[in-house]
């Protein structure tokens, strides 16, 4: 299924490896879903089976390029920092007052996320954006975006050991996660991600459904 693509040999080898990994993971996911034995689970299994037959690394990599733009935008990356302090603002500077991730990603002591970040946005410039579940990834699953190349990020996203134990289906569902969607409702004075949520969801699902291919390695953005 890869032989159709004109790619440098080394990249092809890597892609081969990667897609094998993805296939492996998909199978793993399938069995998990079956164990769950829910209607939804079964439906998903069917759905993925179909998708497995529709892999398309070109479409996948192309979709991921769009996904990457969104994930690396301040609205997403700011809470997926490389350190333990979130980023802030459209220039993604270190969050003022340096709140720390804490074990559960919800902050430390008097500096817990929801001490300032309210259940909803509040009117006015410079006010903390809101969501009931405001947090960073936890300390044991940091899911760093900051500094990741498209290749690194794609690999990280599909690997349950680095993506928060998410299956492919859960990854798809994650596009509708409340906190993810909060990126498109960032409060006054903050730019939106480069794609609308609908567009993002489309490329996100396309990327996954076409095989969740990682783009070839390149320099970090």
């Amino acid at each position, binding site marked *: 299924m890869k032989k159709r693509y004109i790619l440098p040999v080394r990249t092809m080898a890597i892609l081969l490896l990667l897609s094998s990994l993805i296939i492996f993971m998909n199978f793993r996911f399938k069995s998990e879903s079956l164990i769950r034995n829910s209607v939804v689970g079964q439906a998903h299994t069917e759905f993925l089976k179909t998708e497995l037959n529709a892999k398309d690394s070109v479409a996948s990599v192309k979709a991921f390029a769009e996904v990457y733009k969104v994930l690396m935008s301040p609205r997403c990356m700011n809470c997926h920092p490389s350190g333990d302090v979130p980023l802030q603002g459209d220039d993604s500077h270190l969050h003022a007052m340096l709140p*720390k991730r804490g074990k559960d990603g919800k902050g430390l*002591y*008097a*500096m817990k996320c*929801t001490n300032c970040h309210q259940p909803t946005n509040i009117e006015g410039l410079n006010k*903390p954006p809101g969501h009931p579940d405001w947090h960073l990834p936890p300390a044991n699953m940091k899911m760093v975006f900051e500094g990741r190349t498209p290749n690194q990020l794609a690999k990280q996203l599909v690997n349950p050991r680095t993506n928060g134990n998410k299956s492919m289906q859960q990854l798809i569902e994650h596009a509708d996660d409340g906190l993810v969607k909060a990126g498109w409702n960032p409060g006054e004075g903050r730019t939106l991600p480069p794609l609308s949520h609908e567009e993002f969801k489309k490329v996100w699902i396309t990327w996954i459904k076409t095989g969740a291919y990682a783009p070839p390695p390149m320099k970090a953005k």
Partner: protein
Amino acid sequence: MIKLTINKKEHNVDVDPDTPLLWVLRDTLNLVGTKYGCGVAQCGACVVHLNGEAVRSCVTKVSRAEGKKVVTIEGLSETHTHPLQKAWLDLDVSQCGYCQAGQIMSAAVLLKENKNPTDQDIDDAMAGNICRCGTYLRIREAIHAAAKIQRQDA
């Protein structure tokens, strides 16, 4: 009418549910120990406890406090002898004093969750509270002293 429990006392307040808790405390209930400093959750002068967490009342709508326990500096200790209050006086921390209620309320959450904080823990907990007079060294020292008082009392 919004029902609030502040410092163990119930209050019914007739305010817009979007009003920040800070202004309900200060303007409606005349509990002025909680201070306004920036209104955008940057300085920490307005910190109160909401179900034990050090929330910033300037950005917390009063509706969020409904049915929860609010504690302000006035109610931190019924006898005004919280280890932090004692330590603050022992070390004469304050200069202008405007930020200190917020500092103490933040520190109280730290001491509740960490009985023996290091300097790093203190910085992690307290970097959200600005003191324009620069009393930070004494704040650190007073938190250590309060932790000691707390351990001795326990």
